[in-house]
């Protein structure tokens, strides 16, 4: 499942544009999973998108209404609002490569294999 024929040590090509990446992380309370997800995201952005991103953390336990807008089911969910199109990554973001694929920072492994 996680066979990784990586296209090199893929230090990201700094995305396609130098625009600001608008990322939103949905969590539900201060659970270990949500804390882990935030930490993973922060590290990843620093590595790949330094200076080009904003992270907005939404705690659904406090704002349940907001779950509807982005069709959130699972938490944690990371939503890439910008650049378009919208992408969603669910889970604690512990698998960095999956997150990068999910964010389109690197091409999907199956597509290149």
């Amino acid at each position, binding site marked *: 499942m996680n066979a990784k024929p990586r296209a090199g040590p893929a230090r990201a090509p700094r995305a396609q544009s130098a625009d600001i990446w608008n990322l939103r992380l*949905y969590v*539900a309370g201060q659970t270990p*999973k949500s804390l*882990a*997800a935030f930490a*993973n995201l922060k590290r990843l952005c620093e590595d790949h998108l330094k200076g080009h991103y904003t992270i907005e953390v939404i705690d*659904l*336990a406090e704002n*349940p*209404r907001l*779950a*509807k807008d982005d*069709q*959130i*089911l*699972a*938490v*944690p*969910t990371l939503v890439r609002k910008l650049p378009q*199109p*919208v*992408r*969603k*990554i*669910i*889970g*604690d*973001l*512990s*698998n960095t490569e*999956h*997150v990068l*694929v*999910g964010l389109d920072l690197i091409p999907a492994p199956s597509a290149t294999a």
Partner: protein
Amino acid sequence: MNHEPRNLVLAKSPTGIQGLDELTGGGLPKGRPTLLCGSAGCGKTLLAMEFLVRGAVESGEPGVFMAFEENTGELATNFASLGHDLKALAAQKKLVLEWVHIERAEIEETGEYDLEGLFIRLGQAIDSIGAKRVVLDTVEALFSGLSNTAILRAELRRLFRWLKDKGVTAIITGERGESSLTRYGLEEYVADCVILLDHRVEGQMATRRLRIVKYRGSTHGTSEYPFLIDAGGISILPITSMGLTHEAGTERVSSGVSRLDAMMGGKGYYCASSVLVSGTAGSGKTSLAAHFAHAAAARGERCLWFAFEESANQIIRNMRSIGIDLAPAVRRGTLRIQAERPTICGLEMHLVTIHKLVNQFRPQVVIIDPVSNFATLGSEAQVKAMMTRLIDFFKIQKITALVTSLTAGGTLLDDTEIGVSSLMDAWLLLRDVQNGAERNRLLHLVKSRGMAHSNQVREFLLTDHGVELRDVYAGPSGVLLTGSARDALQAHEKAQTLVHRQETEGKKRELTRKREAVDAQIAVLRAEFEVEQAEANKTIAQDETSAGVLAGDRVEMGRLRQSDTGAVRKATKRKEIH
């Protein structure tokens, strides 16, 4: 545990769906989830939505519909065609439509997660209107959107537990699986009540069926029950659920044929009874039905006529030929002829169509002509079950029903196609008998529950003023004679009577003549006798005179001769001795 059984009785949440509450003894288990499974297009979403809408409108229980497959706009459009205004209900805070969209292509999974987002959304929706009912349609979409089934299963288990804790009555729909009730084994989690919907095609006729697979803690109907979806939503007709508790009145209604009424004690059928008119083709079933319809119209009653062989116009025209004009009643709107081919839909659809029309039209009289055409739509048992249901329905509605049934040529006459005769209160058997070169129609009241009735087989004619029962004409050996045989015998007997009368008169005349002759003879004899008598008297008188004279002479002589009178006396004495 057994101290207070009342607390153990399961509370139920009425669905408001016709028939389903009857089957479940009051509705779905209150505060518990119910699994509704079935293959695609069998009506899961509709049933679930109807549960919510009726709950909101009829039971005052607001509901949340969480849709995983259709968005709220599509749902609102789909249900608008069934007469439910979901948007209005939502505006009145009676309903929340929540669309949950999962697009696998947009989603990347990495690491641990849970479905707390779903719980939060559902919780939010429930709390926003104080919902008592929830539908998840269909939660299995999660399996196609998310790949980690271990997480999904754990979360679903938690979801159903959570729904129970929330105290909402929930319907969870699931797609039918190959070997299990649902493709993803949802039945493992929802154990309280499982309802299975099915849409099968048998003999090119699609029928929807519903079965309650399980209902923990409650009795329920166990069979497969046909149901259907039409403009009014879902109706289920539990054929066996009806009790035999209808009232029985004593009022009677005329059959429209006075001599037929006479056969039933002069009063006709019982009100709210069911009458079967069976017979071979062309034996006059429809004509009898038309009489009944006409009589109903004359009484000012409403009559609904289901015609499965002829169109309304055809019936009106044909009945006019025997002097029954149904057109005015149709024009007045008190008679409605609903004509359609029986094969247009399945048995259940017919049943429901009849139900609906009866509820709309509110007739006192219903005619089904002929009911035997249903036989092509299902097995004998199915048709019989349907008829039972129908007749019970009519009785409960206090409708007098007349159904005709065609008996195929060559079969036993008493054998109605669909074995409904036992259900009926009265049974008129019509038949054709052939004698010589003609066929004649006979009518026989096989049974008529609850009244003294004639047991005679009667001949009837279709005249230009309707059905006419003839006088019973049994021949010398007690066999009923019909048609020209009856006429012939009648003529023959008339001739014989004439001859008899003539003979009698002749005899009478002869007798008179004889008496006259005797009288004449007597007169003659008497005359002769009188003559003789007269003569005899004359002679006697002469004799006496002469004797007197003789004696006188002798006395005179003796006196003259001074003779001894004793000698004279002796002489006369001697003469007397002589």
